[in-house]
């Protein structure tokens, strides 16, 4: 006998299926017969899908909260001891729940696309809605097939194991996954519009690019926030003191971000100059394929990681889906490429569109590098039967020159006009940034950076930041002179007048903060490990740490062992840190919980590595890394730039934009605990 939760959830999924199928079939028929009234039926199917997926998700949350262990997913991840907060967010803590959440987010996007864009003329939106329903169909099939979270468990267990300890150890688990889904799943919308543009024959017009750009901006903002939140989670939870390891799951989140970033830039070239139209189609389709590939890598169990929940048949479904999308995407791109020949041509090498071309070239090269490095171990094992890993050295060596070039271009692009720049133009616009570059390079050398790439990153950030800042200062000064506005007013009005452009520059500044944070923390990290008895001290980066206590504590779902250390400045105690080790009942290995004291200039990071069972000694790893908080702050600035640049403009007729926009300055991926250090 299935519980009410199980019946409602499973039932909602089963009912959704015919609605989705109906919607997919109606659109082409309605378009062919010219029956726009029939399209309302298809839109109704989109709304019904959203309502039913919402019902299924709510049924699952109810089941989790009420500990309804007759529902298979709850029996798998629930436990009576888990705090309510982590019980609710365990909705996305394992495979089936995460697929359900994915399907819900997708249905939400479908509903928003129809609600916001359906009054547009033409067949763009109907075909886009059809495409989104087709993707929904895939996830609905997963949910009633290999990833069904609502199976009936009999006899009903009295309790469950609780979520994976790593996933119930930090509050960022409530932030990173939803942001990532909003960003990842959101890339389905640009894909749907690209398909819609080709099927409706509107690909030659620029209109679809404008709608698509706005939706891409929203998803891109979420994805950026998600990536930074994941770095933060990894830093706060995994105890290795780092935030990025070129782990396959990190790469999976980064790949579509790179192509989406490329598209946001090249879309401007298409709008302005009518160039790159086939290329843009490729980028949009490619971004979507990369999100599905990333889901396959992280959800199929082909790569072991905290994200790979299980091995099962679901990988084959994803492979089949990727194949279908690739074939279909290839057909629509190839089929329309003749019609989409470039209207404009490059007038001069010294122009903004040249910089955008280079930007796209480097971003694509970056994507291919990460893709090859990520897939190589799989290919090597399949083809040659050897187990290999592609480590950080490969990714760093390949990507650092690309990153440096991209930073440089971020300084060149804003300074150059469209079409062609005059020599005088070039001279006056390129000298101040050069001064900025020299200044920051000097700063890098003074603070002690000796790594050549570290200095180069500082120099190029100095260059690009000056160039971007001048766009604001020159514009604001012009307004002051022309209209007598005060500096703050002139500045705000300037941004309001062209939010898209200045939002982009703001996002650039976010990238600069991230780049400086990464360059400093990776080149000037200091680390010291020592075994201490109570009262003993150790030194790190000019600070003294004294071990005050080693203690244990019982909590409902776990046992905690911690060390209390005082941070001393001379004889004065300026703070305490408590790195801990959490022992969950269901896992042999303890989960480390480092403690971090963050300052504007850097982080002091302590991790409890070992202790004697009698509590006489604790082994502490202390890490000092400068500017780490700049990375999180920079992520927030990027998201703010995306909001400024992507927020729908009121005066445009029927603003084609998403209502949802990210708030927190946080973000994404993570490290594998398969091998916990």
């Amino acid at each position: 006998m299935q519980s009410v939760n199980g019946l409602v959830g499973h039932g909602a999924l089963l009912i959704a299926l015919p609605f989705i199928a109906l919607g997919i079939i109606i659109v082409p028929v309605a378009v062919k017969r010219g029956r726009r009234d029939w399209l309302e039926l298809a839109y109704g199917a989109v709304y019904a899908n959203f309502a039913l997926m919402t019902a299924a998700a709510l049924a699952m949350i109810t089941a989790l909260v009420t500990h309804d262990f007759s529902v298979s997913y709850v029996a798998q991840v629930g436990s009576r001891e888990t705090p309510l907060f982590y019980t609710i967010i365990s909705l996305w803590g394992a495979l089936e729940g995460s697929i359900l959440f994915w399907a819900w987010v997708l249905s939400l996007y479908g509903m928003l696309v129809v609600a916001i864009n359906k009054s547009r003329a033409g067949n763009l939106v109907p075909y886009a809605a059809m495409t989104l329903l087709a993707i929904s169909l895939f996830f609905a099939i997963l949910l009633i097939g290999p990833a069904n979270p609502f199976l009936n468990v009999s006899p009903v267990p009295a309790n469950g194991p609780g979520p994976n300890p790593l996933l119930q150890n930090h509050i960022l688990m409530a932030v990173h996954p939803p942001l990532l889904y909003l960003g990842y799943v959101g890339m389905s919308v640009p894909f749907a519009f690209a398909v819609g543009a080709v099927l409706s024959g509107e690909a030659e017009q620029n209109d679809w690019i404008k709608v698509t750009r706005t939706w891409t901006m929203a998803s891109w903002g979420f994805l950026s926030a998600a990536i930074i939140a994941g770095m933060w989670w990894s830093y706060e939870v995994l105890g290795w003191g780092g935030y990025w390891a070129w782990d396959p799951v990190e790469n999976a989140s980064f790949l579509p971000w790179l192509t989406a970033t490329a598209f946001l830039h090249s879309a401007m070239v298409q709008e302005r100059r009518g160039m790159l139209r086939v290329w843009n189609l490729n980028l949009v389709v490619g971004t979507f394929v990369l999100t599905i590939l990333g889901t396959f890598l992280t959800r199929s169990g082909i790569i072991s990681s905290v994200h790979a929940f299980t091995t099962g048949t679901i990988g084959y479904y994803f492979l089949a889906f990727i194949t279908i999308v690739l074939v279909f995407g290839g057909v629509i791109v190839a089929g329309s490429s003749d019609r989409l020949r470039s209207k404009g041509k490059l007038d001069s090498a010294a122009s903004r569109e040249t910089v955008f071309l280079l930007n796209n070239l480097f971003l694509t090269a970056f994507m291919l590098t990460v893709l090859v490095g990520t897939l190589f171990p799989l290919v090597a094992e399949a083809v040659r039967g050897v187990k290999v890993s592609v480590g950080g050295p490969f990714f760093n060596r390949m990507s650092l020159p690309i990153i440096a070039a991209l930073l440089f271009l971020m300084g060149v692009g804003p300074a150059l006009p469209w079409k062609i720049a005059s020599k005088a133009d070039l001279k006056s616009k390129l000298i101040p940034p050069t001064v900025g570059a020299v200044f920051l390079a000097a700063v890098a050398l003074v603070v002690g950076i000796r790594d050549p790439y570290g200095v180069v990153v500082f120099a190029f950030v100095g260059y690009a930041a000056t160039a971007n800042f001048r766009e604001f200062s020159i514009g604001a000064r012009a307004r002051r002179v022309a209209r007598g506005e005060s500096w703050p007013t002139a500045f705000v009005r300037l941004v309001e007048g062209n939010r898209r452009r200045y939002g982009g520059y703001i996002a650039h500044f976010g990238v600069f903060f991230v780049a400086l944070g990464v360059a400093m923390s990776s080149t000037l990290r200091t680390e010291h490990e020592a075994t201490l008895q109570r009262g003993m001290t150790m030194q790190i980066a000019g600070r003294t740490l004294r071990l005050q206590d080693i203690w244990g504590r019982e909590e409902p779902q776990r046992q905690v062992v911690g060390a209390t250390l005082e941070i001393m400045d001379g004889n004065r105690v300026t703070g305490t840190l408590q790195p801990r080790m959490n022992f969950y009942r269901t896992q042999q290995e303890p989960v480390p919980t480092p403690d971090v004291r963050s300052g504007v200039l850097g982080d002091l990071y302590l991790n409890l590595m070992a202790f004697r069972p009698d509590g006489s000694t604790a082994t502490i790893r202390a890490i000092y890394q400068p500017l780490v908080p700049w990375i999180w702050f920079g992520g927030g600035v990027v998201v703010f730039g995306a909001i400024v640049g992507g927020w729908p403009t009121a005066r445009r007729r029927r603003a084609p934009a998403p209502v949802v926009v990210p708030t927190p300055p946080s973000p994404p991926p993570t490290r594998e605990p398969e091998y916990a250090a």
Partner: protein
Amino acid sequence: MNRKKGILIGGAVIIVAAFAYLLYGGLDQNVVYFLTPKELLAKGTKAVDVPVRLGGQVKPGTVKWNDTTLDLHFTITDGTSEINVASKGAPPQMFRDGMGVVVEGRYRADGTFNCTNLMVKHSNEYRPPKAGEKPQDMQKTLIKGA
């Protein structure tokens, strides 16, 4: 016009080829092989001083850990061959005889493996302990009233 197009295509081919070459070179030099002690020893001098991931079990009775100098020594075995590993830093809390480990580092000509990163291999599936399997409880002595 056609000449221009030719130059463009030629340029693109050169860029793609150069990029592919760079990628290949980067992979060639930076791929880290995952080996067992037997496989590593079979490679002879070719395996000396190149980055390797070595996987196996901790041979019972070989773990020596000095918590003052932070020196950790143990022997890793795959049942047939074994290699001595030298590492710096605390072993994972649950480090114990017979457990599966992966060590990252370089094999030296003197026959020891210099480990820079020690990883404990454990199942990613989390589950309640099976019958007869007691979770380690070294933390319990520190819990007051336990």
